[in-house]
């Protein structure tokens, strides 16, 4: 029982990290159908900028705020200088542009920052919390809480605000959205800024657990992408559920079968789910008009 609880806690911690990254994918995807492969880089930037600002003597909340604002600015720049000039290009082209952007950001950060690993102090200390014979670090609660908080905020944004609906309308049909008076250029800018900010916030929250260096983005983006696909791309509920499920699969496989197979089992489960439900657990069914 103790061991089982430990596996669950581990799964939830890791799963919340994946969910945070997956949530970042949703806004840009909803606005433009583009899977932004530079999302992992936003997470990395959030962590790295916070670490360097914090080491320079700024208080942690201020360092985190600076990191989020700068990263959002980089997101806007990415849209302005790379995505917008290619407007009208097929989605695949835009996705490839984001891959290029991720390589550029990674390369630039190893020059601007350094190539070492860094960590942030945990927000509420390192003393483990004992629950039912298992242990959980306070930082895990921050990550899980952060994932749930962002999920609620996104859900409200897309269902309760006019702006959120404008984002969905832009994705659905850009021309029609323009015709009803939506400023689609602004929607795109906003969606990149928000996605980057969510990524940066995720970076701040997970850095005390996962550590950060200039090259952590690729691995995080891959797992976050897998989680988003499992849950259903573009749906915040899917991102949260997909992330947590992926984390739990990995932890339980490592605990009960073998850590050698944990990634393999997790990906087999994802393939199986996508085989039955190609749109993911919570993804909207797409109907193509012919």
């Amino acid at each position, binding site marked *: 029982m103790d*061991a089982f609880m*430990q*596996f669950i*806690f*581990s*799964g939830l*911690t*890791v799963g919340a*990290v994946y969910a945070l990254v997956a949530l970042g994918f949703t806004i840009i995807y909803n606005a433009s159908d583009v899977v932004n492969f530079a999302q992992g880089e936003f997470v990395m930037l959030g962590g790295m900028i916070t670490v360097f600002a914090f080491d320079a003597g700024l208080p942690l909340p201020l360092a985190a705020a600076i990191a989020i604002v700068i990263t959002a600015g980089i997101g806007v720049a990415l849209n302005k200088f790379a995505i917008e000039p290619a407007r009208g290009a097929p989605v695949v082209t835009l996705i490839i542009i984001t891959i290029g952007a991720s390589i550029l950001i990674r*390369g630039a950060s*190893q020059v601007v920052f*350094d*190539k*070492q*690993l*860094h*960590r942030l102090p945990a927000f509420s200390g*390192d003393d*483990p919390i004992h629950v039912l014979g298992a*242990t959980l*670090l306070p930082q895990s609660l921050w990550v899980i809480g952060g994932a749930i908080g962002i999920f609620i905020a996104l859900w409200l944004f897309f269902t309760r605000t006019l702006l959120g609906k404008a984002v969905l309308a832009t994705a659905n049909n850009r021309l029609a959205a323009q015709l009803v008076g939506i400023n689609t250029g602004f929607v795109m800018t906003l969606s990149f800024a928000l996605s980057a900010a969510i990524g940066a916030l995720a970076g701040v929250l*997970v850095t005390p*657990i*996962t*550590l950060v*260096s200039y*090259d*952590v983005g690729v*691995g*995080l983006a891959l797992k976050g992408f897998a989680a988003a696909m499992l849950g259903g791309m573009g749906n915040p509920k899917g991102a949260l559920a997909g992330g947590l499920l992926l984390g739990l699969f990995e*932890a*339980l496989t*490592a*605990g009960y079968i*073998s*850590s*050698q197979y944990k*990634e393999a089992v997790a990906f087999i489960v994802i393939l199986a789910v996508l085989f039955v439900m190609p749109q993911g657990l919570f993804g909207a069914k797409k109907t193509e008009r012919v």
Partner: protein
Amino acid sequence: MKVTTTALATLMALGIATAAHAEIKLGASLSASGGAAFLGDPEAKTLEMLVEELNAKGGINGEKVELVLYDDGGDPNKARTFATRLVEDDEVSAIIGGSTTGTTMSILAVAESEGIPFISLAGAIQIIDPVRQFVFKTPHTDRMACEKIFTDMQKNGITKIGMISGTDGFGASMEAQCKDVAGGYEIEIVAQETYAPQDADMTPQLTKIKSTDGVQAILNPGFGQGPAIVTRNYAQLGIDLPLYQSHGVASDGFIELAGPDAAEGVRLPGTALLIADIIEDGDPQKDVVSAYKAAYEEKYGEDVSTFGGYAHDAFKLMTGAIERAGSDDPEEIRDALEATDGLVGTTGTYTFSADDHLGLDLSAFRMLEIRDGEWVSVD
């Protein structure tokens, strides 16, 4: 016509000028960026610093040393291209490099077929076993690290251990070597777990090892963030067995990443460089490690690492050999290199021979323990 003649004359004059100031060309291909940057970056910085230092002192036998340095990004294909370029275009007399075993294997093939002396900075035993005429290396092997750890375990009466290793090249290679030599030290590996290099939590694996019957200690071969996370999860779960890490995380950065509280009591085989401040006077390595540490930290404002030390030793070995050979002929440098006897480096004391191109023994490793956030020698 006149112009052409002048230009020609100038060119010739330049040519003669260069020939008169013949420089010794030293080539290097390191992984200063990419996944192995934590190895290649300090190595490249070390070489640049040492070349500068040497030239300021007048070079080797009055001749300046020119360093031709390439960044292969940890890619064996690029390493091969650069090695070929070093030999054919840059016409270097010797090569230092290969931050990783993969890039080393590429450079090694070129160096061996072209007959250029080559000192590798990578760990695997395959580099020097079987012995290749032109290939040497400075870091101790994974196997030696395992042997050092098992010697310490044996001394403490430990016979049953659990292993948790990274699935990256370093972790996998060391895991295999440790399994291979464990029997010789009457140590039984009763639990075996792995983690991927970027995993964020290893508590399931550690919980499993902890609940395995008879485990007396846990060994974690790996580098990068993995071992730091393992160490923190270890403290989180309150496991009270001794934890052994590998030489892959032998740096002050590791204590910082894992946190001094969690790292308390962790043991690992490291080099004299890590304990430069507390090393006893009269220790043969004292002067070498103190001088290198002071120079590096002053120039770059960051902590020295064991890996930069490998490059330091390779540079000293190579320039020492060039000096003794008294020429920049690759063949003669190789012979002088193989005759190296008792060169004191940061990693250990090197004595090469025709059938030993590593030249270190187990005494090069020191068993270190972390106490109150500092390294302490427990040999």
